[in-house]
C-alpha cells in the first residue's frame, strides 16, 4: 500500500467511536484524572482509567513504516536500569504523542530502536526530543512522550529512527541499519482531543488483570507470537513478576547467528495480553544433572519468525534438562499505569524462572 492510501486509511480511523468498540462505554473526559491507585498490586493490574487515541497519519520510508497517534497527556513511569520514576503531567503538556515503528514487509513491530521526534509549526521548530519506548495496556508497545504545543493548528511531526543495534537474524540481517526520517502531518485541536474516549475503570481498578489493547487498523500490534505459532519445539514456560517467558528450541540457529548447536529462544511477553517485553537483560544456565551445558547471556535478537526474543546457542537440549533464566536488567521501557509495578517495576524483583525440559 502506498503512503497516500495508508494516510487515508489512517484518517478514516480518527473517529473515537472506531476505537471505543472494544472498550465498552465511554464518556466525556472529566476534569480530574483519578489518582494512582493506592492499593495497586505488585503485578499487572487494571488501571484507574483508560483513554483512547487518535491516528494522525502514517508514512513509509526505506525499511521502516511509522504510525503517529496522540491522546491526552499521560502520567507514566520512566525506567532507567533499576530505577523507576514517575513522570507527572506538566502544566504545559497538551498531548501524549505516540509513534509506532514497524517493518512494512513483515508487519513486525520494531521495539528496540532509538526514536526522536521534532514538531514543527511551519518552519518553526516547536520541540524536539528523544522519545522513549513505552508499554501501555490499551496502546500496546509504542514510543511516546508528553508534548506542549502552541495551541490548535497544523503541525508537522518529523520522526527519526536510528539504525538498530539489536542483533537481527534471518531475513532481518542487514536490514534496519540506516537512520531514516519521515514527516507526518499532525492536526491538533483541543476540542477534537477532548472527544477522545476516557473511561474510569471504577471497581475494577487495581485488580489483577489487564484491559484489552485497542486495535488500530493498518497498524500491526506488538504481540509476541502465540505458543503454537512459535517456530521450533516449545519446551516450557514460566512467569516472573507477570512477565511470561516461553522457551522454544530450534535445531539450528537462525541465519546470521554463526555458532554451531541448537538455538534456545526465550520469547518474553506480558501476562494476559502477550505484549512483547523488549530491552531486558537476560542470562541463563542450562544444566544436565550436575553438568552445565550453557551459562551466559541470552542476546536480544529480532527475527522475522521468532519476533523479538532473547537467544543463545547451546550444544544440545534434552528432555530432563533444567533451564534457569535470570533477569539482570528489567525491561527498559517506560510504563503506563497498570504496568509500573510488574516486570520488575517500582517494587523490583523479577524471580528466576526455572524450566524442566519436557
Amino acid at each position, binding site marked *: 500500500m502506498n503512503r497516500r492510501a495508508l494516510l487515508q486509511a489512517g484518517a478514516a480511523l480518527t473517529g473515537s467511536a472506531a476505537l471505543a468498540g472494544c472498550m465498552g462505554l465511554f464518556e466525556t473526559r472529566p476534569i480530574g484524572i483519578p489518582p494512582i491507585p493506592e492499593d495497586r498490586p505488585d503485578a499487572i493490574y487494571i488501571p484507574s482509567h483508560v483513554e483512547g487515541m487518535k491516528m494522525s497519519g502514517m508514512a513509509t520510508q526505506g525499511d521502516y513504516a511509522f504510525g503517529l497517534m496522540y491522546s491526552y497527556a499521560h502520567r507514566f513511569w520512566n525506567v*532507567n*536500569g533499576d530505577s523507576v520514576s514517575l513522570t507527572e503531567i506538566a502544566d504545559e503538556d497538551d498531548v501524549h504523542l505516540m509513534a509506532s515503528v514497524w517493518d512494512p514487509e513483515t508487519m513486525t513491530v520494531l521495539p528496540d530502536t*532509538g526514536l526522536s521526534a521534532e514538531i514543527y509549526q511551519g518552519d518553526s521548530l516547536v*520541540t524536539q526530543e528523544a522519545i522513549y519506548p513505552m508499554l501501555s495496556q490499551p496502546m500496546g508497545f509504542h514510543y511516546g512522550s508528553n508534548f506542549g504545543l502552541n495551541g490548535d493548528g497544523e503541525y508537522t511531526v518529523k520522526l527519526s529512527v*536510528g539504525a538498530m543495534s539489536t542483533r537481527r537474524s534471518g531475513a532481518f540481517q542487514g536490514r534496519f541499519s540506516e*537512520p531514516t526520517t519521515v514527516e507526518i502531518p499532525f492536526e491538533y485541536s483541543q476540542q477534537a482531543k477532548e472527544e477522545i474516549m476516557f473511561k474510569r475503570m471504577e471497581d475494577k481498578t487495581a485488580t489483577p488483570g489487564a484491559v484489552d489493547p485497542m486495535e488500530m487498523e493498518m497498524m500491526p500490534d506488538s504481540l509476541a507470537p502465540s505458543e503454537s505459532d512459535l517456530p521450533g519445539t516449545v519446551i516450557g514456560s514460566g512467569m516472573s513478576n507477570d512477565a511470561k517467558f516461553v522457551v522454544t528450541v530450534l535445531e539450528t540457529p537462525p541465519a546470521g547467528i554463526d555458532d554451531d548447536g541448537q538455538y534456545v529462544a526465550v520469547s518474553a511477553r506480558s501476562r494476559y495480553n502477550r505484549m512483547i517485553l523488549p530491552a531486558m*537483560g537476560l542470562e541463563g544456565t542450562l544444566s544436565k544433572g550436575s553438568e552445565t551445558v550453557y551459562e551466559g547471556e541470552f542476546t536480544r535478537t529480532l527475527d522475522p519468525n521468532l519476533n523479538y526474543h532473547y537467544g543463545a546457542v547451546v550444544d544440545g537440549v534434552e528432555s530432563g534438562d533444567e533451564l534457569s533464566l535470570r533477569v539482570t536488567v528489567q525491561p*527498559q521501557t517506560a510504563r503506563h499505569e497498570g504496568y509500573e509495578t510488574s516486570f520488575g517495576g517500582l517494587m523490583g524483583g523479577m524471580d528466576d524462572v526455572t524450566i524442566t525440559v519436557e
Partner: protein
Amino acid sequence: MDLVDGNLPRRQVLKAAVAVGGASALSACLDLGDSEPVPTGDPNAKPSRQHAWREYIRHDEHGNSQLPKHQILLYINFDGNGQPSTDTRSTLERALTVLDRAYEWSHEGLLHSIAYSPSYFERFDQPFPENVELPQPRALSPFESPRFDTQDAVVHLASDRADVVLEAEQALRGEQDQANGVSVDARLTDVATIESRRTGFVGAGLPAEHQDAAGIPDSRPVPEASPLFMGFEAGFRGNQATEDYVTIQDGPFAGATTKVIANLRQRLEDWYDEQSSEDRVMEMFSPGHAENDLVEGVGSNLGSNSGIDQFVDDIEADARDHGRVGHAQKAARANRDADGNVKLLRRHFESTDDIGSDQKVASLHFPSLQRRIVDFEDVRRAMNGTDLTEVTPAIRQRVNNGILEYIFVRRRGNFLVPPRRYRAVPKPRPESYS
C-alpha cells in the same frame, strides 16, 4: 530585539549585536563597548599558523584557555567555477591583510582564519600531498542525518570584543571604509559570496544571560558561572590536544591543521528538569565522578584536568552497575594516542542560531582541530557508545548514553586550515604558487 533598549544588560546587548550584525549593531556596540582603544596589528608579527590562539588569549588560574567571548563564522563561496584566479588570490590576501593591520592578534584584538572545504579543493585537478587527508563530511552516528556544509570556505572571527568581530565582518563585507583606523582597500565580498553567517559566544555569564532560547527550560537553570549552556566547564588543559599536536608537521602544508565544524541543537529541558546535578555529572563526565563527588558546581575545582582518564577502563562496569555512562568517558576512549596524548583540540562555543530560521534556539558551534579528520571521526564514534548498548539494555541509543539525549547534530563541515602563508585560495599542492 531593540539593541538600544537602555534596560538590557550590557553583556546581553553585545551578544545580541553580534547575532544581528550590520552597521546598526556595530554602532550599538560601540556606544556600549569598551572605551579602551583596540590594539592595532602588524602583519609581520602574526604567528605562522592561523590556528595559533593559545599564547594570545586569556587563561584561567589553572592554565585553561579562555576562548574569545564573541565569535562569527562566515561560510563563503568563491565567485565562479574552476580554479580561483590570481586576482582572486591577491584580493583575498589584501582583504585579510586589512584585518592583520587593523587588529592585534589577541583576544583584545582579533583572531581570524580562513579554512577550505573538500569541495573547494575539487576545483583543482590535483591531489593533496600524501600526509593531508580532507574527506567530505559524513554522518558519524547511527542516528543522525545532518546537513553538510560544503561551501568553499569558512572565515572564523573571534575576539573578546563584540565591536571588533562586528567591525571586522563589516570590513570584509565592504561596508566600512576603515577598520580600527586602517583603510579597507580590499573586500572578501569582491571575490566571494557569504552563504551563511553564524555567531556565538562563550564564557561565564553569557550563556546564563542568553538562556531565553528554545531548548532551555523556563526555570533559567544555566548557572551564572558556566561558560556553556549545559552548566559545566569544558576544554580543560589536560584534556585538550596542544596546538603543536594538531598541526601538520611536514610537507607543503606544514603548519596547517584540519577543522571539523558541527552545529548542534541542544534540548536541555530534561537535562535540567528531570535530572539531579549528580545525574548530570554522571552523564557529562562519568559515574565515577558522581560517586566520588569530584565535580563541584560548574567544575572549576577540577583544575586543569577533568581526571577522565582514570575512569575510561571502568566504562563497561559503569554501564552495568549504574545503567549510565559518561560523555567524556566515552569520548576519551578514542581521544588518546598510543603515548597518551590527547588528539583533538576542541573550541566549541554557544549560540542561539537556528541556522536558516530567525528563532532563537540553544545551539552549539563545535569547531574541533586535529591533525587528521579521521581522528575526529573516531572520537565521535566512540561517543556514540553503540558498543555499550550491547552491554546492557539500560544504555540505549540516545538515553543514559552520555549526553546524546540532549544534543542533535544538524550540520557538519570539514575544512583544512592552511598555514598563514597559503591562506589565500591555496592549491592542493600550495608550493606550486611560489
